[in-house]
Every structure is written in structure tokens, then in C-alpha cells.
């Protein structure tokens, strides 16, 4: 019964994409209320960009995601290398602890981080957000890079050394290029996680540094404004672009 399987598939895709399509379509709706179509308009985009606080929150979020992803990729890659390359005491415990961070409920992490920052007397703002985001991104980066290293031919570094490369040159010219796809995948994962995090950020952000997800959240609490649709559409376009970029880089590295 091919028609049955086809219509089932159609239904699944419909459920997945109808909300997104509605969001995109209504972002161009001239009407004030979200229930009827009042003609095509870009007024919500205009009002979005005129909303200074919103634009600022967007930049803040982008900067935070960028730095958090980069820092966690650097630390995570080194951690993965250490776990892969060396045998040391407490290696298993370290490995397990990564999973604990990954699996524990976000709210637990949020509360404990807030407690820690208060204890240290750290002013809540960009730094506390960055530290928190690096914390929850780290295990994902480590696991992504570890997966790549598992398939890594141990003879490659030896071949490089044999041909006259120092340990540092080998790392630069062989190890990093070979695990590059994993580094990028880890970075993108971190970027996305940081970009749309609400729970942890709610706890550890302060009034000095407002980020996008929290801004949106407070906006919709007082009623769904069409501006949010416009913002959602922009975010959608942005993440699609990121996805295409990563696919393009991956396909190029495979050639």
C-alpha cells in the first residue's frame, strides 16, 4: 500500500513544517493580530530593527555563542586528545564526569552554577554567561572529537614524525586537519546550544547583558507580538545558512 506509507510520510512532514511555514508567512502579515491575513508587509521587520533593545540582545547572543563555542572547542579538543592519547589515573572518572554534565537536568546545572557564582562573588553578566555556556557545551565537543579520534589511524602521527616533522608540526599539519570536521561539528553544536539556551541563561544572566532567548521569552509573556515572527524567520534563515555552510565545508574536506 504505497499510498498509505506516502500519506503517512506527508503527515509527518506536515506536522513538522506547518508551524514553521505559519511563522514565516505571518512575519510578512500586515495585520496586527495573528489570526487574519492583512496583506504583505515588512513592517514587523522594520519595527524589529528599530527596537534597540532587541537588536542589542541579538548581538549579545551572537557574541556569546561565538565565544562560548570557540572556548569550548579549544578546551574540548584538548580534553579529547588527552583522553585519547594518554593513560593516566582518573581517566575513567573524567570521562564519566563529562556524561554527568551532559545528562543531568539543565535546571540542576543552572542552580549549581548560580550558587557557585554567588559564592565567588562574580557579577552576573557576560562572564558568568560565558562560563556557564562553556560548561554545558564542553561535553558535546569532547564527545564529537573523541568519536573522530577513535577512527584516527595511529600510524599517521608516526608517519609524520618519520618524515621529519616535530611533534608540534605534526599536530599542526596532520592531526588538526584530519580532525577538523569534528572540530567544526563540535563548534557548530556549541554555537547552537549556546544560541538557544534559556534555562541556564535565566539563572546566570544579569541586567547588564541581555541575550536574545531571554528577550524573546519576556516579550511573549505579555502577548505574542508579530515582531517575534519576524525574529523567528531571521533566526531560521541564519541557522539554515549555518547548516549549509557546515555541509559545504564537510563535503569539501571529503574530496
Amino acid at each position, binding site marked *: 500500500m504505497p499510498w498509505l506509507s506516502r500519506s503517512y510520510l506527508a503527515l509527518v512532514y506536515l506536522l513538522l513544517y506547518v508551524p514553521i511555514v505559519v511563522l514565516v508567512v505571518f512575519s510578512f502579515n500586515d495585520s496586527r493580530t495573528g489570526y487574519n491575513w492583512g496583506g504583505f508587509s515588512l513592517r514587523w521587520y522594520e519595527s524589529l530593527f528599530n527596537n534597540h533593545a532587541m537588536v542589542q540582545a541579538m548581538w549579545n547572543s551572537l557574541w556569546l555563542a561565538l565565544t562560548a563555542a570557540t572556548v569550548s572547542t579549544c578546551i574540548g579538543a584538548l580534553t579529547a586528545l588527552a583522553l585519547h592519547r594518554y593513560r593516566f589515573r582518573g581517566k575513567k572518572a573524567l570521562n564519566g564526569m563529562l556524561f554527568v554534565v551532559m545528562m543531568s537536568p539543565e535546571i540542576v546545572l543552572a542552580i549549581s552554577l548560580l550558587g557557585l557564582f554567588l559564592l565567588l562573588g562574580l557579577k552576573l553578566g557576560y562572564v558568568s554567561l560565558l562560563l556557564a555556556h562553556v560548561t554545558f557545551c564542553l561535553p558535546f565537543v569532547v564527545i564529537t572529537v573523541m568519536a573522530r579520534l577513535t577512527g584516527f589511524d595511529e600510524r599517521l602521527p*608516526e608517519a609524520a614524525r618519520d618524515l621529519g616533522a616535530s611533534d608540534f608540526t605534526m599536530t599542526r599539519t596532520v592531526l588538526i586537519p584530519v580532525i577538523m570536521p569534528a572540530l567544526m561539528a563540535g563548534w557548530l553544536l556549541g554555537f547552537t546550544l549556546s544560541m538557544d539556551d534559556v534555562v541556564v541563561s535565566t539563572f546566570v544572566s544579569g541586567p547588564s547583558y541581555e541575550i536574545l532567548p531571554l528577550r524573546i521569552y519576556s516579550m511573549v509573556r505579555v502577548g505574542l507580538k508579530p515582531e517575534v515572527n519576524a525574529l523567528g524567520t531571521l533566526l531560521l534563515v541564519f541557522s539554515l545558512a549555518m547548516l549549509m555552510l557546515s555541509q559545504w565545508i564537510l563535503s569539501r574536506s571529503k574530496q
Partner: protein
Amino acid sequence: MTKTLLSLSGISKQFDGKTVLDELSLKIDDGEFITLLGPSGCGKTTLLRMMAGFELPDRGTVTLSGMDITQTPPESRPLNTVFQNYALFPHMSVFDNVAYGLKMEKRPKAEIRERVEEALAMVQLEDFARRKPHQLSGGQQQRVAIARAVVKRPKMLLLDEPLSALDYKLRRTMQVELKRLQRELGITFVFVTHDQEEALSMSDRIVVLKDGYIQQLGTPREVYERPANVFTARFVGQTNFFPGRVTAIAGERISVDVFGLNRELSMPSFRVTMNQPLHVLLRPEDIRVLAPDDTEGVAGKIVERNYKGSTLDSVIELEDGSQVMASEFFDEDDPTFDYSIGERVRVSWVDGWEWLLAEEGDEPLTDEEELAADDAEH
């Protein structure tokens, strides 16, 4: 006059308390093709890695052209390695792979280009320079690995079972090609393999290794025809072990009782005493299968017959139950040649083709047990 290029002396190495190499010494001559042959776990790869600098010996020294390089890191040794699974850099083109070593030496661009092209031409891959390793076949990848290693003009090329991943036919082709390269380049080749056939056909000298000891060091012919001990005899080629006993000693001749036959043989290199048990070794191709009414030889019957094209291999069971392998060249004109299974024959050999070994305290495993142990290790 050959000159020693690399010498290992008193090398010992343990891994997790297990002795892999024990007080091993070896001198490798300049320009020779030397093979380290042995079953897996015999220490041959560890020995090669020690020459390359990937492993440090617990004790002993490695010297190259008279210079102590025991502690020298791999990147500073003028030797290059061809790895078992080629270890080509997957993100670089064939050209960049081969150029890698020269870039490390910071050679001028023009020189790099010229030498890489030369190296690729040598392995007949000049048209593949822009390809990535994964776009090449196993044999081509192998040739890139060789080009990458020889482009630096090393004093010595170390090859770690380089042909083991290739199929039989390609392996034969590569064996010939490697020999040609070695002759053309005049570089010393140290070749590691567990394939005795490969070792016999390619080497100038063979080092037979087992349990971290050198069992025998000699030319392929010496190793095959005059094995130093039971292990070497069993490991290199197929051998019939006949139980013998010394019945008379007269000057350079001794009499040995084999299956009730009294054969007069020349004195072996070791000391013999009256009634001493001996191994009388005969390769399958040394065995003569005779008609049942022949006056010579021991009686037996054919239990297996394998047509191999150029030879006809048979297994003959003697009356005491022991089995003899025989391999005869095909001769269609010989009427007595074609025996069928179950037919009675007599087994003999030409005097002087046998090889004598003393019985050893702990006899090594038979081929089958060796293979089983090998499998268990992998």
C-alpha cells in the same frame, strides 16, 4: 667489502613485564635487502620500530654508520618507514603526501616539485599526483607510501609488512617491483614479514625471529636448506621430520637408522654420540615416491593427492602411522608417476639431500598449533 650500516647490540625490551626482545644483536650491511621473518609476537615489528625510533630499548644501543642513535627521535633519523596500512595523510593529495618529507627539510619549491615528480615516476604514478589517497587502489596507495619514504633519499628503508593488505597476485607484482626499486636506489631495505615465501624470494639475508631471539641469520638458501633448529625448519617451508638414531660413527660419515633403513650420511655440524636420536629433515621436493615393488625405501600408501599445476603433492602414510609430504614435478612420460589414493608405494630420497638436527629439549609447536596461536593473538 660490505660495510655495516646499522648495528643493534644487546637490545632488550619489555612491554608490561613481558620480554619482547632479549639481548638481541644484529648488524645490517649497507645496500642489502634484509628480512625480519617470524610469527606474530616474535618481536620483529618492535625491532623495526626501534630502528625507526618509535620505541626505545630498555637496554642496548642502536648505531647508524658508527653514530649512536639510540635516543635520537624518529624525525632526526635518516631512515624512513613504509607502514603496514600505508598511513597516507588522507587530507593531502598524492603530491603533497610525497612532498611532506621534503617540506619538513624546507627545500626550495622547485626542488620539491622535481624530486616528487621523479619519485612518482619511479613508482609509475606520475598521472595520479592530484588525486587523494582514498581515490587510489590498495596497490597504488602502497606505491605512494613507498614514494613518500624514498623521496627523502634515506640511508635505509624500513618496511613493516607492507604487502600484507594486498591480494596474492598484486603482492607478487609488488615483490618484484620492490626488488627492482632496491636495486635501482641502492638503499638498504629492512623488510618485516610473517610470510616465509615472500622472505625467501626477496631477501639477500633473512633473520628468523621467535620470542625475541634470533633463531637463524643467513641467506634464503641457507635458511631453507640448512635450518639451524627445529623452529626454523618448521616455520620456513614445509618439512618432513623423520626420527633417526645414530648407529655408527666413522670419521666424517655416520650411519643413521630411519624407519628401519640404515642410511650412511655425512657428519652434521654438531657433535653426535652413538644411539643419539636425531631429526632427519627432508623437504617434500626431496622425497622420491617409488613403485611398491622397488627395493629401496619405506613402504606406505597414498592418502592424499593434490594437483598443483607444476607439481603433484601427495601425503603418504607409512606403516607406523606417520605421514610424509612429497612434492614431485610433473612428468607425463613417467608411467609410475600417477598413483591414486590408497595405492601402495615406497618412499625414499637421494642420499645427501637430507639435513640433520639434534633433538631439542622443548620442541616447538607444529604448524597447526602455531597457526592456532597466531589466530588467538589477533
